């Protein structure tokens, strides 16, 4: 067991090696066979998965495991930049989540991308992402985490724009990158400000710079140095990074566009792992955030608002992937909300369960899209349950899970809701419950539109291959049961609850005595299910009267608001068009004529100076010697002058 902990670096190192092998594949004959890329990618992840499983068990058996190893990278006497790996319960949990989902998705991708020309490129990007994500999870310090945070962003950019021939994909990649840059800018400013206000502490303590383990002490010093107001802004800057990465309001608009990438990518990066990295970073930076109650409140409200807004948008989406994308946004909102109110374990618990069922939902949608020749609009689907039962039933499991109907989503969402309840955040609790209702509604809506009723499309249907359905079946298991297993109800047979494994400060002992809230949320989810059924399930359609049209007419303004995604994109477009572009044009004129002119003047004059000095180099050895001796004499005279004066 110790072996796995001590050699944890192998987990990210193998994907890096695979990436390099595929990158230089031409020389290494990798491109001759598709299975070589697959074997490199999946093999590296599989070994990582085995390692992660053993590490997880080790962490479960040895409470308080905190294995940190730092490689000193740059030592500037005062500050020590290191790169290393940190294994604690949180990292162990994330490792298992990332490697297991990655592995299944890589196998699935083989089926999905087999006909694509860029097969090897796809796997190279995929394995690059894997490397950066795993290294981010294992980071020991904020400095290292920032490096891999950016690398994760880069691989996400590359994969969204994978089909760069499509203008929409190229645009989406650019949008994702730019919006993430905004967040990363905030993060960087936050990191630098934190470093600035705690520099003395790091210099005196001789610890690794910005290491997570002692971030809390440095943070409290920074709080003293900066004062509460500045410190609040500092933490807000830090928060901006996770807000962009986890697609929270107001930086959430990239996630829906990111669905332009291949569906396995949407499943892996934009549902299960990378977007959750924001929540993971918040968890790592918890000691700093905790020092600023205002930031925690803002975090909670950002999460709550995102959960609500994204859910309202998801209600009217007809593109199956966009619907799932907004649902991802909404669920991430839940996690951030949980982190904001101090429900650390609950947020991360939801992260874990969500990763499994959302990855599965996306893979299901990918199977549907693949079978219908790239048809993504749910209006042209329907009745697919009979044609692809495996996909339909796994999708149903995922839908039940995300809606909070007894599968794993129920338990994690329950943890968040009960924390809201015990913290007395009643307004947020109401928002969360409404969101839960909408979640059930739009997820069942998408299920009914896709899998029930009559087939409305024209595309020729072909069956998804086994390579694609097997991962779905495997993923269905954790989607169904992880929530219950780690809910604490199995304490008797020795499986501890999630919040006694991953916690902040001290383990919370939550009492599940109050049945009011679980029943309430179940009823709400059922209501959502019923509403979706009434509207979209043909078998129930006969039950309601025609008065529904009247209701629809009254809700048209709300409908428009939702279809237009609350006009966020339009607002940003106007902002850029009428505010940012004019300013930047003005600056560019200044830049072009004044700054560039100055620079060009310097450059040209330097070139002429160079020519002038070159005249000394005329090839005449006499001239050379005379210049050398004259300069020598000049130096001597200089010395004497200095000496005399």
């Amino acid at each position, binding site marked *: 067991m110790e072996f796995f902990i001590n050699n944890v670096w192998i987990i990210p190192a193998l994907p890096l090696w695979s990436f390099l092998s595929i990158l230089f594949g031409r020389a290494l004959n990798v491109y001759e066979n598709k299975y070589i890329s697959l074997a490199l990618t999946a093999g590296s992840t599989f070994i990582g998965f085995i390692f992660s499983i053993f590490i997880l068990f080790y962490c479960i058996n040895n409470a308080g495991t905190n294995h940190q190893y730092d490689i*000193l*990278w*740059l*030592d*500037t*006497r005062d500050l020590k930049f290191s790169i290393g790996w940190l294994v604690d319960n949180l990292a162990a949990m994330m490792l298992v989540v990332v490697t297991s989902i990655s592995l299944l998705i890589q196998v699935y991708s083989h089926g999905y991308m087999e006909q694509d020309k860029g097969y090897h490129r796809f796997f190279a990007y995929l394995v690059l992402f894997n490397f950066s994500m795993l290294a981010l999870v294992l980071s020991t310090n904020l400095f290292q985490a920032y490096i891999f945070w950016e690398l994760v962003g880069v691989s996400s950019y590359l994969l969204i724009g994978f089909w760069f021939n499509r203008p929409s994909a190229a645009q989406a990649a650019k949008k994702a990158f730019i919006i993430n840059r905004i967040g990363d800018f905030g993060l960087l400013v936050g990191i630098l400000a934190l470093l600035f206000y705690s520099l003395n502490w790091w210099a005196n303590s001789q610890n690794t710079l910005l290491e997570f383990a002692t971030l809390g002490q440095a943070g409290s010093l920074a709080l003293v140095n900066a004062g509460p107001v500045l410190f609040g802004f500092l933490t807000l800057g830090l928060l901006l990074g996770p807000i962009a990465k986890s697609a929270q309001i107001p930086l959430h608009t990239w996630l829906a566009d990111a669905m332009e990438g291949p569906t396995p990518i949407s499943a892996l990066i934009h549902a299960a792992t990378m977007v959750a990295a924001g929540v993971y970073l918040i968890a790592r930076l918890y000691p700093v955030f905790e020092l600023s109650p205002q930031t925690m409140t803002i975090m909670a409200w950002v999460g709550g608002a995102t959960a609500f807004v994204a859910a309202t948008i998801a209600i009217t989406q007809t593109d199956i992937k966009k619907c799932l994308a907004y649902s991802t946004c909404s669920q991430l909102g839940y996690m951030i909300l949980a982190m904001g109110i101090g429900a650390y374990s609950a947020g991360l618990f939801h992260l874990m369960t969500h990763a499994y069922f959302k990855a599965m939902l996306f893979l299901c949608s990918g199977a549907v899209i693949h079978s219908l020749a790239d048809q993504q609009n749910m209006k042209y689907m329907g009745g697919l349950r009979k044609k692809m039962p495996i996909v339909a039933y796994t999708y149903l499991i995922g839908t039940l899970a995300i809606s909070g109907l007894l599968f794993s989503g129920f338990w994690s969402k329950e943890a968040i809701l009960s924390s809201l309840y015990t913290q007395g955040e009643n307004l947020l609790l109401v928002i969360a419950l409404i969101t839960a209702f909408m979640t059930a509604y739009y997820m069942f809506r998408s299920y009914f539109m896709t899998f029930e009723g009559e087939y409305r499309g024209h595309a020729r249907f072909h069956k998804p291959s086994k390579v694609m359905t097997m991962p779905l079946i495997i993923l269905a298991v954790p989607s169904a049961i992880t929530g219950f297993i780690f809910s604490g109800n199995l304490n008797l047979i020795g499986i501890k609850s999630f919040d006694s494994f991953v916690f902040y400060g001290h383990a919370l002992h939550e009492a599940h005595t109050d049945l009011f809230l679980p029943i309430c949320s179940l009823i709400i989810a059922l209501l959502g299910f019923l509403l979706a059924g009434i509207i979209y399930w043909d078998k129930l359609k006969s039950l309601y009267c025609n008065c529904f049209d009247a209701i629809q007419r009254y809700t048209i303004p709300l409908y428009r608001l939702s279809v237009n995604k609350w006009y966020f994109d339009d607002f940003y477009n106007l902002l850029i068009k009428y505010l940012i572009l004019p300013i930047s044009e003005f600056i560019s004129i200044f830049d072009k004529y004044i700054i560039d002119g100055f620079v060009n003047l310097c*450059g040209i004059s*330097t*070139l002429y*100076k*160079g*020519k002038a*000095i*070159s005249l*000394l*180099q005329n*090839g005449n*050895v006499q*001239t*050379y*010697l005379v*210049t*050398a*001796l*004259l*300069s*020598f004499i000049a*130096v*001597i005279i*200089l*010395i*004497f002058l*200095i*000496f005399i004066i």
Partner: protein
Amino acid sequence: MDFLLDIKTAMLPEAILSLTILMCTVLCFMLKQQIQKVIYIISLLGLVISLFSISLLAANKVFTAFYNSFSSDFFSVLMRFLILAGTLLVIVMTKDYSFTFKNRQGEFYLLILIAALGALLLAGSNDLIMIFIALETLSLCSYALSGFLKKDKSSNEAALKYLIFGGAASALMLYGFSFLYGITGLTNLTEIFSYLANNSGGTMLNLTLFTVISGFLFKVAAFPFHSWAPDVYEGAPVPVAAFLSTVSKIAGFAALVKLMGLAFNNIEIISITLGLIALLSITAGNFMALNQMNIKRLMAYSSISQTGFVLIGFALLSYMGISGAVFYLISYLIANLGAWLAIIIFNDQTSKNLISDLNGIAYNNPYFATCFGLCLLSLAGIPVTIGFMAKFYLFHAIVQMGPAYLWLLIFALLNTILSLFYYLKVIKAMFVCGQESINSKLVFNGGVLNTSFIALAVLVVILGILVTPFINIARYSALSVKLPIKQIEIFK
């Protein structure tokens, strides 16, 4: 017996190299032209063995030989390692080049090995006479080597210029040595230092110091003794130019570090003057490189400006500065040899030397272009390469010296920007100029030349990332010099 024991503990690489030279001399006369390649292999073997024998030297202790006139400490061991590694690569460079020497291939290797022996002795010398003998061994061989293309006019010109310039510089240096002997009555450096610690040398000492330093400024091609470099690099055979710009420079710097001990009676003047010389070297090299079309001349001017950067480390007269200079030398050796390897690979196949001949080479040979680009970026000091770390560490050393040296930092930074122009000019030719402007084709096979070229380029990046162990080596070596430093040190 003592004599042999000294040689074993302090001079093992030199002894092995001398044996190789003897062997080569005999073989030179015995072998016919067709099989003179044997000498190439034997000299390679001899160098590899003496490289390994360096690891047998105990690096943490000081050993002396020849009655204290040669001392082997960690610093000199490191320098000798760099010299041997550089010579090894220079000899590798001649693999496809040596046919131009016709029936004198054997002599060429012989001369290179003797020059390397001189460089090794110079790196460990601890006595004025030893310094002079070693320096002349190195120089005389270099003169002969740069004129080795007998029928080539520019090669002859290069040899003559180098000889005249070298003669003048040696004369200046000897003049300084005679003063030094006159002031102290000693020739052993350790004794001279201890004498100067108790007696002030007076104004004369400063004059002496500068005449002495001039000899080395010539060897390392620093302003104002730099003007031979472009003509010689252009005219001399390419491997010789590579040898002069790396191995011979490192030897010069190694000896200069030892002589820095003389400076510590009058720190301010020496420091200011050396700083000025460093800045002028950088600036002159940079300015003259801007308009160059010939890649060999460009490398000559670039090496002048790189010399200036190393001299900055000396000008600080602190351990931090010297360790910065040592680390800069390591990075310079790797990147510069990589660049010269690129030039010789290109020259072997196309016999062209202009920057415009490299146009669009990235399209038909991306590996070559990438590796060459990496070496140039390292010379320019762009991150992720070792050159960046070297510049960073050096500038860090300047900052440590406080605001008095700010002018040095500012000018060095400005010059770094300036130098980017001509390095990027080459990279632009290789990558940006379109496919239509390609006028040379390059085949990249897995020969020893290309392998070592790629290895150097990889080293440039890897050492740029995993830099701490090498910085530590530079620090230990700077500490092992044991300069009689009177300054307050903030260096741990």
